[in-house]
């Protein structure tokens, strides 16, 4: 029924827009984590080759990875495209920093014009992405990468995996665009607890690239697509020439470079790496899989407790408990991988929300874990054990700053407008849509208003039809006739309505007013010398008192 509303040309256009939007999204994100400033030129004459009228370069390797992850599919309900950004130290500790998610939900906007409005809004969304990628904590980390750590990216397609971000991660929404086949949403979940890093001093080590590859191979779940460093130099003997992005019929994406590609993209200088780093794809031992964990959203409420679940889960970043959710119905099959041969197929069991069930499922999988994780050298063993130590260790001072970001609110925003950070459910935007709270968003159907027990509650929330953010509710609505329900009380002579009206605008507490505050502070300051003298006189008494406490 949906397709009859959308002409086939529109449908084709829409699919193409979404596909290239996804590819450009990945480019923007990865380029924002390269560690250097990006600069592209404006061009007044349309070249016909810049998608969404924005000059965004295409790094061929990144497009290649994105296409591999997408495997010809488009983001759809339950199938999101995710770009995971993580940090890896020279000693092999790694930590997920961000997950950027491009998703589709079912809310359709049938009226919207595909070739015009959707296209322009996707362009606007890319601009927002450019802006937002510079304001999450990982941006500053990525600008300083090279000596002690590098930033890696990984693209996967399927269900979003947030477990590696630690507790209390924050989310920021980049934006949404409604289309006739669903609403595209782009958002980022980012770690705020950066305290896992170990206390060891980092020293220059031989190429970080080597450690990246080895560490990756140690993963017992070679189900994840490989990590790639955001910046690396393509070796001279690089046989893997990535095909340039293929042209489509009309508008196509060709690279729009304003500077020589070898300089722009691959920035590693000799001071960072002692030996030429190998090319990622050549040394990968593990074939690429697109399989993703399909864990229920409710499991995001379980706190990640590596200690409780046994050895080995801590160092991998994917708690073993989530393995229970592996869904063998997923089209990609686990093929035998790893150095030592095949991995037994994971039983397909639906993920349960309870801790107990997941612990049960861990037992058969523990065997899998140990057989696959066969470090072939002592160096690898050290890496594995060090990282588990590092993860469970006490917070440390290398990266002490804890970035706390809240989804911002304007100064005058009405108090009753809930922001994502306040919601009880972590990562609420991935929760089932019936708790969608963006009722200001015209693209999104307004949620059913909560059942009001009383007109009192209803009138408090009615702000009229004004869409712009305004002051507090007192300014916005005028009560004409106020009939609160359940308001008659035999005990009090006053009814609820009168009470509400009378106490609606209480006067400011006098102790909070500045004048009195300032006055009393001035008085306090004046009396300080006196007080100090008294205390000094009584110092022996104080000392005796302190003695009794010890």
């Amino acid at each position, binding site marked *: 029924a949906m397709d009859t509303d959308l002409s086939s040309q529109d449908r084709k256009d829409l699919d193409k827009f979404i596909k290239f939007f996804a590819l450009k999204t990945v480019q923007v994100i990865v380029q924002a984590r390269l560690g250097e400033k990006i600069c592209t030129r404006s*061009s*007044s004459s349309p070249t016909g080759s810049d998608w969404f009228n924005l000059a965004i370069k295409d790094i061929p390797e990144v497009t290649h990875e994105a296409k591999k992850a997408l495997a010809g599919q488009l983001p759809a309900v339950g199938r999101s495209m995710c770009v995971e950004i993580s940090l890896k130290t020279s000693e092999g500790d790694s930590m997920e920093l961000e997950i950027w998610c491009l998703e589709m939900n079912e809310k359709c906007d049938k009226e919207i014009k595909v070739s015009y409005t959707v296209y322009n809004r996707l362009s606007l969304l890319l601009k927002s992405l450019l*802006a937002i990628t510079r304001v999450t904590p990982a941006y500053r980390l990525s600008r300083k990468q090279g000596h002690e750590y590098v930033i890696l990216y990984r693209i996967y397609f399927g269900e979003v995996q947030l477990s590696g971000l630690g507790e209390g991660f924050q989310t920021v929404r980049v934006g949404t665009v409604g289309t006739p086949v669903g609403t595209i949403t782009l958002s980022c979940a980012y770690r705020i607890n950066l305290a896992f890093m170990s206390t060891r001093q980092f020293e220059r080590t031989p190429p970080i690239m080597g450690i990246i590859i080895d560490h990756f191979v140690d993963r017992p779940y070679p189900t994840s697509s490989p990590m790639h460093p955001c910046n690396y130099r393509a070796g001279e003997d690089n046989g893997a020439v990535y095909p340039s992005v293929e042209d489509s019929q009309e508008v196509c994406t060709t690279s729009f470079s304003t500077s020589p590609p070898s300089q722009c993209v691959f920035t590693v200088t000799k001071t960072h790496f002692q030996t030429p780093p190998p090319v990622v794809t050549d040394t990968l031992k593990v074939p690429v899989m697109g399989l993703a964990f399909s864990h229920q959203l409710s499991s995001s409420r379980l706190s990640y407790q590596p200690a409780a679940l046994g050895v080995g889960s801590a160092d991998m970043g994917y708690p073993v408990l989530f393995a229970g959710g592996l869904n063998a119905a997923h089209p990609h099959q686990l093929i035998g991988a790893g150095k030592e041969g095949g991995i037994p197929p994971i039983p397909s069991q639906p993920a349960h929300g309870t801790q107990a069930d997941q612990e049960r499922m861990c037992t058969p999988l523990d065997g899998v874990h140990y057989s696959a994780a066969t470090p072939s050298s002592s160096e690898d063993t050290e890496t594995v054990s060090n990282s588990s130590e590092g993860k469970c260790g006490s917070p440390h001072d290398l990266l002490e700053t804890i970035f706390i*970001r809240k989804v*911002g609110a304007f100064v*005058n925003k009405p108090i009753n407008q809930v922001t994502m950070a306040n919601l009880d459910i972590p990562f609420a935007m991935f929760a089932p849509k019936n708790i969608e709270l963006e009722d200001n968003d015209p693209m999104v159907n307004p949620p059913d208003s909560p059942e009001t027990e009383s007109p009192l509650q209803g009138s408090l929330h009615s702000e009229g039809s*004004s*869409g712009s953010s305004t002051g507090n509710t007192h300014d916005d609505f005028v009560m004409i006739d106020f009939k609160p329900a359940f308001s008659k009380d035999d005990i009090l002579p006053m009814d609820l309505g009168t009470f509400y009206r009378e106490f609606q605008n209480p006067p400011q507490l006098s102790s909070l007013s500045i004048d009195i505050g300032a006055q009393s502070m001035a008085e306090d300051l004046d009396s300080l010398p006196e007080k100090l003298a008294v205390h000094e006189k009584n110092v022996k008494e104080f000392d005796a008192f302190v003695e009794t406490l010890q």
Partner: protein
Amino acid sequence: APAMNCRAEVLEVSVEGRQVEEAMLAVLHTVLLHRSTGKFHYKKEGTYSIGTVGTQDVDCDFIDFAYVRVSSEELDRALRKAVGEFKDALRNSGSDGMGQISLEFYQKKKSRWPFSDECIPWELWTIKVNVVNLANEQERQICREKVGEKLCEKIINIVEVMNRHEYLPKMPTQSEVDNVFDTSLKDVQPYLYKISYQITDTLGTSVTTTMRRLIKDTLAL
């Protein structure tokens, strides 16, 4: 006619004197990034093609912060000029360092002679600034970081507003394009805008200075 309520957004920042310019530029450029398109090229039969907008990263010197702006030297110059004047006014006014700078997007509505064209605003961004004085280097360092964090929040706020997809002027025909867009720049095309500022002097009253369009004044005005 579309609803001509001008939506208004207000952002507030507290910064040190030397951070004023970078903080204002960061906000203004972020808004203009979203409110600029490529140059329109009209073809026959009322269709048009759109040029390409480039972008670039800008690092702040006095704030731990970076932002993205449209790659257009003309636009950057215009904003720097406005922000420079605002900063000077703040410094010279002898006020306690409070003021606000506004970026207004408007449409022109042609009127018949003898009436001059109307400017009808459709979006107004106001940045309220409070300049603080710091005592020592340690405080300054903390301020660098704190203001950087605050600006990150402001960018998120701006993007939230942009994502609401509220009223935007309709895409104009060739004859109307100058009523909606500023077509005077050679590489990008922002919506028609004007920047003005007010300094709040110590008495709490405001001294208004309105600057006309920075790029080109139209004859009608």
